[in-house]
C-alpha cells in the first residue's frame, strides 16, 4: 500500500514533454485484450491501497493498483461485494485495470455494469494535470460524467489514479438451478420479465444455468417456481465462467464476444457458442473471418469484440462517431501519449 501519485505525475509529465507514448500497466492480466501498444511502459501497480471504505456508505475508494482480490476480501468481511463481478484473469488484477477495461461478470444484466457503479475518479490527463471528477455519493450531477467516460476507455484518455465505486450488500442466499434448454435465448431472456430474483443466467453446453439470489424465502420460493436441479458448488461454476476457465474456452480458435439485445437471434456463424448475461453476451469460438463476424453481429443489432486472437480487437466506429472519438481523445490527451492504438489504430 503506497501513494506514488507524485512520481506517476512526474513520469507522465516527462513523457508528455518529450512526446514519448506510454503504455499504462497495472497487474498486466488483461494485456491480451485490445490492440498491441508499442510504447514505454508506465507501471502503476505500486499506487495501491484502499483510501476509504465505510460499509454504511456502500462506497469504496481505492487507488488504481489495489488488487481486486484485496478489495473483494475487505468488502466480504462486511457482507458486501462489487455487484458487477469483475473478471480478473489472474491474481494480479487491479481495480484500475478492471475499470479501464470496463469488464463485468455474470451479474451485469441484473445489477449493472462496472460503469454503472463508478461514482468518481482521480486521473492524470494528457497535460500532466491531476484532476478529480464525480465523487463518493450516488447522486451527483455537477459537471460532465468523466468518471464513466474513463470506464472502458482502456487508458486512452488518461491515467486512472483513484476510483470510487458503489458497492452492494451480499445476498443472504444464493443457489443455481440447471436444466436442459433446447431454445435457450427466449428462455433466458424471458426470466427477467418475471418478478423472480435471478442474478445470473447462462447457457453452457446444452444446459441453462440460472442463479437465484436474495432473501432466504425469496430464493426458496423462486426455486420451487422454476424447477430444475440445484447445482453443487455453484460459486465455482460462475467463477470459472467469469474467468474463462470452463472447457468451452479451452480451444485455440479465436474467441469473439458478441453483445446484442437479449432476445436477438443467434448470428449465422460457424463455431461453438456460449450464452451469458441472460442472452445479451454471447461468446463464440470460431475460425470465421473478422469481416464475417462483425457483419453478423451488426445484422442482429450488436457489435463484436475479438477478445482473444490476432486482428483488430474492437468493432469499427462509423462516420460521425469516429470523428467524435478522435476529438474527445484530443480533448484529454492532445499529444496522443496514453495507450495509443490500444482501442483503435487511429488514436
Amino acid at each position, binding site marked *: 500500500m503506497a501513494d506514488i501519485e507524485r512520481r506517476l505525475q512526474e513520469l507522465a509529465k516527462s513523457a508528455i514533454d518529450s512526446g514519448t507514448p506510454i503504455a499504462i500497466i497495472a497487474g498486466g492480466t488483461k494485456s491480451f485484450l485490445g490492440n498491441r501498444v508499442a510504447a514505454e511502459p508506465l507501471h502503476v501497480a505500486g499506487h495501491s491501497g484502499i483510501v476509504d471504505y465505510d460499509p454504511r456508505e456502500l462506497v469504496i475508494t481505492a487507488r488504481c493498483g489495489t488488487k481486486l482480490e484485496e478489495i473483494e476480501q475487505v468488502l466480504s468481511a462486511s457482507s458486501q461485494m462489487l455487484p458487477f463481478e469483475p473478471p480478473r484473469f489472474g491474481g494480479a488484477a487491479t481495480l484500475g485495470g478492471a475499470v479501464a477495461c470496463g469488464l463485468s461478470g455474470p451479474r451485469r*444484466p441484473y445489477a449493472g455494469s462496472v460503469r454503472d457503479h463508478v461514482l468518481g475518479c482521480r486521473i492524470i490527463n494528457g497535460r500532466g494535470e491531476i484532476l478529480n471528477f464525480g465523487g*463518493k455519493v450516488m447522486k451527483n450531477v455537477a*459537471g460532465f460524467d468523466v468518471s464513466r467516460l474513463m470506464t472502458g476507455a482502456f487508458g486512452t484518455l488518461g491515467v486512472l489514479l483513484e476510483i470510487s465505486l458503489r458497492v452492494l450488500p451480499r445476498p443472504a442466499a444464493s443457489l443455481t438451478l440447471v436444466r436442459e434448454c433446447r431454445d435457450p435465448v427466449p428462455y433466458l431472456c424471458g426470466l427477467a420479465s418475471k418478478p423472480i430474483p435471478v442474478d445470473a443466467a447462462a447457457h453452457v453446453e446444452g444446459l441453462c444455468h440460472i442463479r437465484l439470489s*436474495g*432473501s432466504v424465502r425469496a430464493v426458496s420460493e423462486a426455486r420451487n417456481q422454476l424447477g430444475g436441479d440445484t447445482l453443487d458448488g455453484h460459486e465455482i461454476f460462475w467463477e470459472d465462467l467469469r474467468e474463462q476457465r470452463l472447457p468451452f474456452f479451452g480451444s485455440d480458435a479465436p474467441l469473439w464476444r458478441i453483445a*446484442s439485445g437479449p432476445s436477438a437471434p443467434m448470428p449465422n456463424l460457424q463455431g461453438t457458442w456460449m450464452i451469458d448475461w441472460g442472452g445479451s453476451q454471447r461468446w463464440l469460438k470460431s475460425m470465421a473471418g473478422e469481416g464475417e463476424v462483425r457483419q453478423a453481429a451488426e445484422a442482429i443489432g450488436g457489435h463484436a469484440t475479438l477478445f482473444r486472437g490476432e486482428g483488430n480487437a474492437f468493432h469499427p466506429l462509423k462516420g*460521425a462517431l469516429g470523428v467524435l472519438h478522435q476529438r474527445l481523445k484530443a480533448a484529454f490527451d492532445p499529444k496522443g501519449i496514453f495507450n495509443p492504438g490500444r482501442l483503435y489504430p487511429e488514436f
Partner: protein
Amino acid sequence: MQFGGSGRESLILALRAMLGEESVLTEKEELAPFECDGLSVYRKLPMAVLLPSTVEEVQGVLRLCSDHGVPVVARGAGTGLSGGALPLKDGVLMSLSRFDRIIDIDPVQRIATIQPGVRNLAISEAAAPHGLYYAPDPSSQIACTIGGNVAENSGGVHCLKYGLTVHNLLALKVVTMEGELVEIGSGAPDSQGYDLLALMTGSEGLLGVIVEVTVKLLARPERAQVLLAAFDDVRHAAEAVGAVISAGIIPAGLEMMDNLAIRAAEDFAHAGYPVGAEAILLCELDGTNAEVSEHVMKVREVMQHAGATEVRTARDEEERSMFWKGRKSAFPAVGRISPDYYCMDGTIPRRNLPEVLERIASLSRKYGLRVANVFHAGDGNLHPLILFDANGEGELERTEAFGREILSLCIEMGGTITGEHGVGVEKLDSMCLQFNPAELAQFHAIKSAFDQKGLLNPGKAVPTLHRCAEFGAMHVHEGNLPHAHLERF
C-alpha cells in the same frame, strides 16, 4: 454575443422557409411562455422559438444556426429547476415538444424507444399492460419529458435501488451542433468505443440535441410496502438511515422529514403523520412477496433499535399512498407557512447526515432563519428549505449567505453542490468551489470536442474560468412555485 439587423432577418426567413411559418415564433406574446423554465427568477426572451417536427428539421436548424453563428437552446417541458433551458437573448430556443411519439414498446427485450418530447410517466403508462415500467421517477414526472431527463440525468425517489437516468438508458440519437446525426448505443448492453451514452447523460444540452431515446423497462415488483418510523431526535433518525443500509437492505426509497416539514405537510395533506415527532423516515421496500415480508420485519427491528418511538406499516395501498402524499406535498406545504423559501440540492455521504443536520440547525440559529428539512436520506441528497421573507430588511441577503454555507458544508463533507437539479445557470458560481480551473478547463475541452463553435446552450452548466463568485439557490417567492401543480420532492 450580438446578432441583429439583417443577419437576424435572413436567418428568420431561412428558418421559416425550412420549418414553415407556424413553426417559427417571433412575436413577444408567442415567446413569453418560453421565457423561463422551472427556475423562474431567471427570465429572457429568445430571438425566436422553433418547433421542428422531424429529425431532418432539427439537423437543418442546427446547420443553419451553426453557419450563422447563432446559439441554440433545446427545451423539453421546461420543468427543470436550475435554468438549464433559459433562453439566450441573441439565440433561438428549440422546443422538442412535437417529438411526442412512443415509437415502440418491446416487451420481450423490455425496452421502449421514444421521442424526446414524451413525458416520463407516459412511458410507464404505455409499458404497464406488459407488467413493465420505467424506473426513474422525478417528482415532475407527469410533465417532464424523457429528453429533459436525459439532459439532466434526472433522479427521483427510487434512485437508491434503481439508479438515475444514466442507469436506465440503452441508446440515444443525437444531433450535433454541426447537424450530424449520431447514434449512440443500441439494444446491446454496451457499445464499442467510449461511453458516450454516459457522457451525454446529464450534459445539460451542451453536447448535442437528443432526438430519440431507448430506455430499459423493468418488471413491476410483485409487492411494495412502506414503513413510517418516528423519532424524538433528528440524530437518531439520521443514524437509522445508515443502520438500514448496514443491515443489508436496499430500500426502494428512504426519505426523511424533520419536525417543521412534518407539521407543514400534515396541515396540508392530512397524511396521518405524528406531528410531535422530531423526524420521520419513510422506507419503501419492494420485491417478491416473500422478500418484502422478510425485509419489513427486519427494517422494523432496525428502526426500533435505532430509537424509533413508533413504527407503522401501511395497512393497505390507500395508507401507503397517504404516507407518500405527505412527503410529496412537502414543498408546497412549506410554501404555505412562509412568504418565501430557498431550496438547496446538495448531496453528502450518508454517514455525515447527523453532523450536517446539526450544523444546519446551528446555522439556522446563527442567521435567525428557520429551515425545513425534507430529503432523499437514503442517498444523502439534501433539500434544506430556508424560510424567509424577501420583504424583510436584509433577509434575502442573509438567506443567500446561509445557502452558501450549506453548499460549502456539502463540499467540505465530500459531497456535491447538486444531486439532481443540475447546474444550469443557477449553480455556475458554486461549480467554481467544487472544481479547480484545470478540471473546468477539461470540461470546456469536452464541450469543444462536440461543439467547436460553442453554440449549443453556451454559458450553462460549466462556468468560465473568469467567473467565480457566489453560490446560487432556487428562490421561491410567496410560495409561488413555477409549475405549482407539480409535486416537488
